[in-house]
């Protein structure tokens, strides 16, 4: 730092604290002074946790990993929006310059029956892993890798599949949805394989199993509000949900 563009903020933080999955949680208020606007939101939490530890208190549990906006580990529902006020970013890529001096920031965990709170702001997103696992394998030839361009894929299909594959499984779609629906996530995972030749063999079985797994996890139903698409840090499109609906119809009424 020291470049001169960093100013400092004094903030009030209202953070959700919950001992474990079964405990009833509540908000805890913290005053923070001298927070650099160059910090990321997670770095601000690091500062808060160091302060708590030095005071002999328990640090706030929150999920994070790559801090580069690519892993999907960080969560946090900040001031009424997943990943905070900026569009198209994860919480680690949200910087304190998005806030004003004197702001009160409310931080909550993802709220979903399918994402139980492990502790404080950390939730268990194992439901997503189980949905992906339910989709099963894809049949591919073993042996040497095929020549490049041996399997021709139309450019538009490749682009749409790649767009769907950009999903990092962070769960912001579920957190943003008023119904707690996981349709955007599941539809992205269904689409990325349904669009490619490699995904054709198990295509019909895959969508059926994944939708079944999604429903079994207790996610809500989609009402097409579009909140998921608006809050998705990777810009996953609602077109994927329509595609998944088509895929399931195609698989059911074949």
């Amino acid at each position, binding site marked *: 730092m020291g470049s001169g563009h960093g100013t400092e903020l004094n903030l009030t933080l*209202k953070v959700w604290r919950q001992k474990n999955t079964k405990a009833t949680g509540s*908000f805890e208020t913290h005053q923070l002074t001298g927070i650099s606007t160059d910090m990321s939101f997670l770095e601000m939490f690091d500062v808060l946790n160091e302060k708590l530890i030095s005071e002999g208190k328990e640090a706030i549990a929150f999920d994070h990993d790559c801090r580069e906006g690519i892993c999907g580990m960080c969560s946090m*529902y900040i*001031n*009424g*929006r997943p990943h905070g*006020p900026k569009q198209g970013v994860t919480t680690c890529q949200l910087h304190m310059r998005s806030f004003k001096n004197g702001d009160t920031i*409310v931080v*909550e965990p993802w*709220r*979903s*029956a*399918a994402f139980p709170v492990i502790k404080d702001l950390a939730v268990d997103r194992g439901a997503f892993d189980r949905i992906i696992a339910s989709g099963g394998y894809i049949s591919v030839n073993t042996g040497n890798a095929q020549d490049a361009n041996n399997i021709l894929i139309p450019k538009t299909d490749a682009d749409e599949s790649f767009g769907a594959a950009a999903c990092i499984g962070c769960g912001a779609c579920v957190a*943003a949805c*008023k*119904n*707690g*629906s996981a*349709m955007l996530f599941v539809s992205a995972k269904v689409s990325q394989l349904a669009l490619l030749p490699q995904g054709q063999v198990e295509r019909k079985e895959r969508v*059926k199993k994944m*939708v*079944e797994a*999604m*429903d079994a996890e*207790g*996610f*809500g*139903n*989609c*009402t*097409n*509000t*579009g*909140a998921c698409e*608006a*809050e998705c840090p990777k810009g996953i499109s*609602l*077109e994927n*949900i*329509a*595609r*998944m*609906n*088509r895929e*399931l*119809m195609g698989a*059911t*009424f074949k």
Partner: protein
Amino acid sequence: MSQGFLKSSIGKKFVMGLTGLFLITFLVVHCFINCLIFFNDGGLTFNIGADFMAHNWLIRAGELVLFFGLIVHIIQALLLTLENKKARPVGYAKIDGAANSSWYSRSMGLLGTLLLIFLIIHLVHFWVKSRFTGLPGEDANGNENLYAVMQETFKMAWVVVLYALSMISLSYHLLHGFQSAFQTLGLNHKVYTPIIKKVGIAFSILIPFIFALMPILMFLGVIK
């Protein structure tokens, strides 16, 4: 139709979308027939249409299908709402819904409930009289005089206000519902979806506007 599909979250939404589109087609028919009052001929033309609708057996059979579709739409909406409530047992303390979606897309249940209340009052005003308790005689052409009931009903200011407000509810319900139904049925296309959305907006404004115009113009005495 496969049992499994209808029990899935996508199948349930599919039923909502299909019944919704079916109810939209009904609105078109209802609006066309009612537009006959704009001939402003003391309801003679309108009564021809209303008499036909009341006595044609195909229309009467269609009426049963219509009620069935409406009831399925309502019950399915209730079941889905209850399920969605269960999906988030602990709510957020602070929600900035306006940042990512329109208020009416998040309020379909409320708008639908208002419409249901209106519908019950509306059926008591006209449908019950036309089908069960009887209409006040016949017009000059010998047709049942449903128009006379309209004239009587729309003399009351509170009824006119209620109808106009209810049409605003209908407009917002359609504004989300029209394009949402196509998305649910899997019809999302780079070229056609923007067209569907525009048609949906036009439909959602035009149809409720025409409906609202009827009680207002009759109350003001423009249509006699």
